[in-house]
């Protein structure tokens, strides 16, 4: 987590809305569209207050036509605008992925660099509140796998604002994923870190740099989104057992800060990857491979993954809570790792 001198505190949700408002004030070409982002202010509040300030011309409620309006964001971006399009839940990507990965993410390349597509695609991710298999996924591995779009995932209010401003100003397509569990919404269980100091002035958090959310010496826990908080909580518990965990908040999967991962693993000699996304063929494997490629000779133990298994996210609370990566599972995995590798 980046330190800041400001003492004004905001929730992550309000930090996002403030970042968008800031950029809309500064740049006429920025506008927002999506379902329920106007009067409702976004189902997760990411556009709260924008309609009142900027009006329906720049804060546009759309029909349930994700292919239509995300494709329209592309056309608007090519023609001089800087659209922010909200896909309400990332789980819905399947109705509009062509526009995202085949069009938004590839036009710059196809055009040999002549055309820029500065779209920010915002979307809510994550589970843990029994919203079942079509409203609880993270799917960042899916997006990060396909070239041409940056993928950022803030875990706290400060980064949320800075990454949003950086995303809007970026000349490339940026997928901005906010985990519901870090937003500080009144109607969700929240961790205390969902509210934090956020400077009032605009600032950017650089896309592509991880942040060391907690320093440690015995093992590196690399993760993203809500799991940063799970990892931080686990680190506290591990501390009591005499294990010093370093927590890496990856913040950006594309570009991935491979150097930052490798540096940390070289220091600690152990890597635990925590991933709320599906276990296989996703983020956890990539981070393990990155560490292996860059720090093989430094490893005291094989890297370990604590993830959501390859199952649809189940509805029933005992099933879901068991399947998601929990503080307990992280603590157990880290402890075993330390015991087994001395």
């Amino acid at each position, binding site marked *: 987590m980046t330190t800041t001198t400001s003492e004004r505190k905001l929730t992550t949700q309000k930090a996002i809305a403030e970042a968008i408002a800031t950029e809309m004030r500064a740049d006429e070409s920025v506008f927002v569209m999506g379902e329920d982002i106007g009067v409702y202010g976004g189902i997760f509040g990411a556009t709260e207050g924008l309609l009142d300030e900027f009006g329906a011309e720049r804060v546009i409620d759309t029909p*349930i036509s994700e292919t*239509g309006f995300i494709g329209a964001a592309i056309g608007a971006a090519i023609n001089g605008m800087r659209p922010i399009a909200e896909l309400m839940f990332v789980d819905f990507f399947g*109705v509009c992925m062509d526009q995202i990965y085949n069009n938004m993410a590839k036009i710059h390349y196809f055009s040999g660099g002549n055309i820029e597509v500065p779209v920010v695609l915002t979307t809510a991710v994550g589970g843990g*509140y*029994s919203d*079942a298999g079509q409203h609880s996924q993270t799917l960042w591995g899916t997006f990060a796998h396909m070239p041409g779009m940056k993928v950022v995932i803030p875990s706290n209010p400060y980064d949320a604002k800075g990454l949003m401003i950086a995303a809007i100003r970026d000349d490339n397509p940026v997928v901005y994923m906010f985990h519901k569990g870090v937003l500080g919404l009144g109607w969700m269980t929240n961790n205390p870190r969902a509210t934090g100091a956020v400077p009032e002035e605009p600032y950017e958090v650089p896309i592509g740099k991880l942040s060391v959310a907690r320093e440690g010496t015995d093992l590196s826990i690399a993760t993203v989104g809500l799991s940063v908080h799970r990892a931080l909580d686990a680190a506290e518990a591990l501390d009591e057992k005499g294990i010093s965990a370093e927590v890496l908040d990856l913040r950006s999967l594309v570009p991935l800060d491979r150097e930052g991962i490798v540096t940390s693993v070289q220091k600690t000699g152990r890597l635990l990857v925590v991933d709320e996304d599906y276990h296989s063929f996703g983020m956890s494997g990539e981070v393990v491979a990155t560490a292996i490629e860059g720090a093989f000779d430094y490893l005291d133990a094989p890297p370990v993954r604590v993830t959501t*298994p390859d199952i649809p996210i*189940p509805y029933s609370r005992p099933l879901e809570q*068991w399947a998601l990566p929990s503080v307990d599972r992280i603590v157990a995995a880290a402890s075993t790792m330390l015991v087994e590798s001395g």
Partner: protein
Amino acid sequence: MDIPTDHLVDMYQTMVKIRRFEERIREIYLADKLPAFDIAAGLIPGEMHLAAGQEPVAVGMRPHLKVGDAITATHRPHHVAIAQGVDMKKMAAEIFGRDTGLGRGKGGHMHLFSVEPNFGCSGIIGEGMPVAVGAAMAFKNKGTDNVALSFFGEGAANQGSFHESLNLAALWNLPVVFVCEDNAYAISVPKTVSTAIADNSDRAAAYGIPGVLVANNDPVAVYEVMGEAIARARKGDGPSLIEIKTDRLWGHFEGDADAYRTDEFKTEMLARDPLSAYAKRLTEEGILNEADIASLQQAAYDEVEEAIQFAQDSPYPEPEAALDHVFAERTVTL
């Protein structure tokens, strides 16, 4: 049209049952979440979309259905499921996340699946429409006279799958009835803000099929229009599109402040509650008297209560059961 009295009464009885079910789910859902609403808490966690006010849309089909007819419904599925006769106990148990539920707790309220009656629903807008087309393909292929009904909101009518599904069904002359539940809102977005024309039924012209509008939330009108469309499909004369103007009496989901609808709108809407309106009509027409209504209500209440009780008494699945049913055989580990 001369409608048999038992059909009229059956529709009323089913409406009462649906309303009661929704009311009880609402009570239980909110009971342990308020005053500080926490969506993850309580006996029923997660999102909850209830259909109070939309009962007419669901009950009109009842007397026209046959065993094996397939239905695909939406994220707001209870009224349609109950109207088709989906086991209410198992449905309640699923909503409570229990091992005795339709999906053994894996699906929850947006993912109710039943083999007989042949019912499914979904959390993704427009997702069920192509599935209904496929069910109809199977019926046609096997030479049964079953039909498939696909329910969807007026918001879903602007999703690409609407277009693809109607074109396929019309092209292949399949026994599908597309039923648009027009409650005028998709969450906070009014139909005027989402839809370029007034009535989705007019979109039937784009596929050369009949498009019928039911302009008010009247179960008898729905009964008639459904009857025709289902009969047509059963005969092999192809699909129809029906749009029914209805009302979502409560918020989009429970916990919704519903601030996007004016008080005036809501007052008017509540005044035309289809359940009381229909009760009034049946009594006025002498079909039911107050005692009949009371006893129908009691029966419905009892049935709902039994289902809720069953759900509450049922065990949760074992945590590790999360790994089952990804495939027909278990292959996944934690």
